């Protein structure tokens, strides 16, 4: 068990929780988070939003019983984290765009920080929100430019031919649009998928993602996949 440092409400339903400890993890990886004993049965997979020497941060939306319990936890309370799990974003160079939608911006924050520290040729960030800006200020130190869309389609601002690599996470139609737009350009797209998970380690096959290479485990082979490989229409 680890100690909660802060659990701040950012919007009506979105929270940012910080947990004390020296955690490991790469951009795009996640932890299975549990703030209760037996029920709900399943832990909640949350991607790494930020990682420092002495703490880890997650961004989450209250959308069910589990996240409601997490949101009620106070600084000093304990929480269980298992991980890091999954196959995250690759370390890349060149001109990079990060395209996030809503809570899909969560893993991109840690990706932005990691990439920025590796001095890429260019790092532009595109953030789309349905009704309010959740966290664009968290990206400001780690980007050459940040473009924000509220209520529209963030993908319309993106010109894939400006980039070598694009990382995207958000609603599946948004990621599909990014992958489709990038196909005619030469940009390589990596998508971070979200699926309901149970074990989190690749044993139970409930988080299957349909790809050109057959079924893949979102928790272990993903959550980050090559954007060209995922069959969005079968999701």
């Amino acid at each position: 068990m680890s100690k909660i440092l802060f659990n701040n409400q950012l919007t009506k339903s979105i929270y940012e929780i910080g947990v004390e400890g020296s955690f490991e993890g790469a951009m795009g990886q996640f932890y299975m988070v549990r703030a209760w004993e037996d029920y709900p049965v399943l832990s909640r997979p949350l991607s790494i939003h930020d990682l420092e020497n002495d703490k880890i941060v997650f961004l989450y939306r209250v959308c069910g019983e589990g996240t409601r319990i997490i949101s009620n936890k106070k600084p000093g309370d304990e929480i269980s984290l298992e991980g890091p799990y999954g196959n995250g974003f690759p370390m890349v160079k060149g001109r990079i765009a990060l395209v996030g939608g809503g809570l899909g911006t969560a893993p991109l924050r840690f990706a932005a920080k990691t990439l920025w520290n590796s001095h890429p040729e260019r790092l532009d960030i595109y953030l789309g929100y349905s009704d309010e800006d959740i966290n664009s200020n968290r990206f400001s130190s780690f980007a050459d430019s940040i473009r924000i869309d509220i209520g529209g389609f963030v993908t319309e601002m993106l010109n894939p031919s400006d980039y070598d690599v694009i990382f995207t996470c958000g609603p599946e139609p948004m990621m599909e649009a990014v992958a489709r737009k990038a196909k005619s350009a030469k940009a390589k797209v990596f998508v971070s998928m979200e699926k309901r998970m149970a074990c989190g380690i690749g044993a139970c096959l409930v988080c299957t993602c349909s790809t050109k290479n057959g079924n893949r485990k979102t928790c272990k082979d993903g959550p980050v996949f090559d954007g060209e490989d995922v069959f969005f229409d079968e999701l």
Partner: protein
Amino acid sequence: MSCSKVDFGNLSFKNPVVMASGTYGFGKEYGEIYDASKLGGISTKGITLEERAGNKGIRIWETPSGIMNSVGLENPGVEGFLENEENYLSKLDTRIIVNVSGSRIEDYVETVNRIEKTSFDIVELNISCPNVKSGGMAFGTNADSAYGIVREIRKSTRKMLMVKLSPNAGDIAEIASACVSAGADAISLINTIQAMAVDIYSRKIIFDNTYAGLSGPAVRPIALRMVHQVAKAVDVPIMGMGGITNGADAISFIMAGASCVQVGTANFMDLRAGTRIVDEIEAFMDRENVKSLSEIRGIL
């Protein structure tokens, strides 16, 4: 510390705790978390003759004190299993149970034939999967069809043949008796209970396959009752399962007549549930001065 070694037919298990099919894969992933040799055994993910991609759509849904799954037997097929998993599993110092499923009796027979040459100890015949459109549970909810499939498969294997029963049968004790008369060496129960969930806003059923299988603590009292009924009806050893999450749950199944227990959904609540339950069983034995689990098996 007490020793929770148990006999299961003519096989000895170092303890009665077996990981249930479908929740433990083929052991590799959990092997990175703890040493499987601490377990009594592992029942593999269900194997079919041909590779299967499983069901589309949502595969897991939470309920109060439980989960519903609709994986639909995604598996690499028996050849893929033998090629990629046999070597790893055969090196583990624990009993390996191969869970076998299928749509047609001939497929079950062929799958069992191919497993016959392995070193694995037990074939667990899954005639109770609620998540496939043909075969599966259909074999296990009628005494005559259960008898027929077990009799055919009995001819194909000299391994211990354990039949996994469906709780969706009318009279589970009758099905168990039919399986034993057909040559089953052991019975495991219960598979998941057929269940359903609805998204009231989209006005649609959650699962593409319409129904799914309910497991976890929500089903435990029903599973316990069924294990008790089957233990009264047959003379072969029983592996009881259904929502076992701790040592006390396991002991209650043993008192109801199970020789071993399987742990499934609890692996998702606690990745180390298997070894923890072994420790809790042995702590109970210490506290209650139980020298062997045979002293308390089937006492109810």
